[in-house]
């Protein structure tokens, strides 16, 4: 579904992506990991067409994405920072996004799940950070698209909402979707991810499942395995 070949991107003189090759075709949850500044966000933004690569090809559903915007209809994206127009209400915002995508969404179920009913006619600038993140999740997951991209989905959520989020992600996975996510919470990644893509200095350093990663690094658990990847690089 997503195939990336020799993707390069420089910001000014600073090269961020230095030839990424990545092919994600089977269904399931792929976690994109890497230290700060390794290019995770730039990679995600390139897939979404927000960052325009300098070199390389990027196909989503076998269509090259440059100068094309219709392909984004197949992607649901959860941005990292939730910040919405201050004077719209939650209800209006949901209607706006549906309007923009020109599709009906199953927002009712998600609103009920996250108990957002009391906030529906409140203005967005009166909501707390966690509530905004819940609204953010509703906006993302109310559409039924084959690809879902989640950037730090757990930020600011309380334990109950986190459980709901995990269930939702598993549900979407069961529908046979491709889910890309980034997270700094290793236990969350270990529980959810089927496959790990580890970026280091703008390149794909490791790609495979958690078992393979543990074997390769000979580490007792996942967190140490990730740490080992970084240490190996330093030696």
């Amino acid at each position, binding site marked *: 579904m997503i195939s990336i070949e020799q993707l390069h991107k420089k910001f000014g003189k600073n090269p961020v992506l230095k030839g990424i090759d990545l092919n994600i075709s089977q269904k399931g949850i792929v976690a994109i990991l890497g230290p700060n500044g390794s290019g995770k966000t730039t990679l995600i*933004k390139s897939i*979404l067409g*927000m960052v325009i690569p300098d070199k390389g090809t990027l196909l989503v559903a076998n269509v090259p994405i440059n100068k094309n915007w219709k392909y984004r209809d197949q992607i649901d*994206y959860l941005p990292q920072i939730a910040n919405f*127009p201050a004077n*719209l209400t939650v209800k209006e915002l949901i209607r706006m996004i549906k309007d*923009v995508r020109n599709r009906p969404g199953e927002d009712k179920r998600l609103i009920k799940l996250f108990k957002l009913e009391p906030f529906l006619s409140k203005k967005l600038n009166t909501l707390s950070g966690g509530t905004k993140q819940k609204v953010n999740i509703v906006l993302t997951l109310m559409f039924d698209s084959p690809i879902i*991209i989640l950037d730090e989905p757990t930020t600011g959520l309380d334990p109950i909402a986190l459980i709901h989020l995990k269930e939702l992600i598993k549900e979407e996975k069961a529908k046979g979707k491709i889910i890309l996510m980034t997270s700094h919470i290793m236990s969350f990644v270990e529980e959810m991810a089927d496959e790990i893509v580890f970026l280091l200095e703008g390149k794909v350093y490791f790609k495979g499942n958690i078992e393979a990663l543990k074997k390769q690094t000979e580490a007792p658990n996942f967190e140490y395995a990730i740490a080992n990847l970084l240490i190996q690089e330093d030696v």
Partner: protein
Amino acid sequence: MFKILKYSFFDLIRSRWSYVYLLFYLLLGCVLLFLNNDLSKAVITLMNVIIILIPLIGTIFGVMYYYNSKEFTELLLAQPIKRSSIFIGQYLGVALSLSMSLIIGLGIPFILYGLFQSNEIWDFVLLLVTGTFLTLIFTAIAFNIALYNENKIKGFSYSILFWLFMAVIYDGLFLMSLIAFQSYPLDSFSIGATLFNPIDLSRILIILKLDISALLGYTGAVFQKFFGTSFGLLVSIAALSLWVIVPLLNMYRKCRKKDF
């Protein structure tokens, strides 16, 4: 584009600042019209205030809106819509809500004053038309500056500097060059220099409409000869429209190449 326009417009007209801006014009219009028995003096004062204030407010609101809605813009960029529709929609949302504050804020006192029965109605219409043009122009330029500058502080400073240049410094340079080159014929130079600055152009248009160009002396006569004709008016409207269209086209071009 219209979807984005619709929602940013709704968002903005509910903001407290829109009401403050509207109330300010309402108050200004009422005070000047009802506590002043000379109508043309009232119009001149009104003109002097709005010709400086509108560009300033347009600039500040444009830059502020762009930077404040940055994260939401990123969310919109990930949706299946064209980039240019997002930015042009947001721009129109800001510019139209500001223009609406101006038109309603000054329109109500005008109507209460009974302008529909008077001959001055066209002076006021021209005041509102140039005001709307200035809003469109300076908001567009503010959006342009914001698109080129990731850094908020820089973007803010550049746009304020641009406003200061157009509202104050430009006139100083203009006057100085008139004095420096006074031994040469300066008719076409001064007309050209006026056309190049939307604030000056608006001011001249309104002054000429009020038939007080005699106050401007010989220059007034030159201006009257050019801008007073229907050809001159057409050229002025075209110049103002160019000031809207060129920044808009540049916005369209820039936003397609930018990384977010």
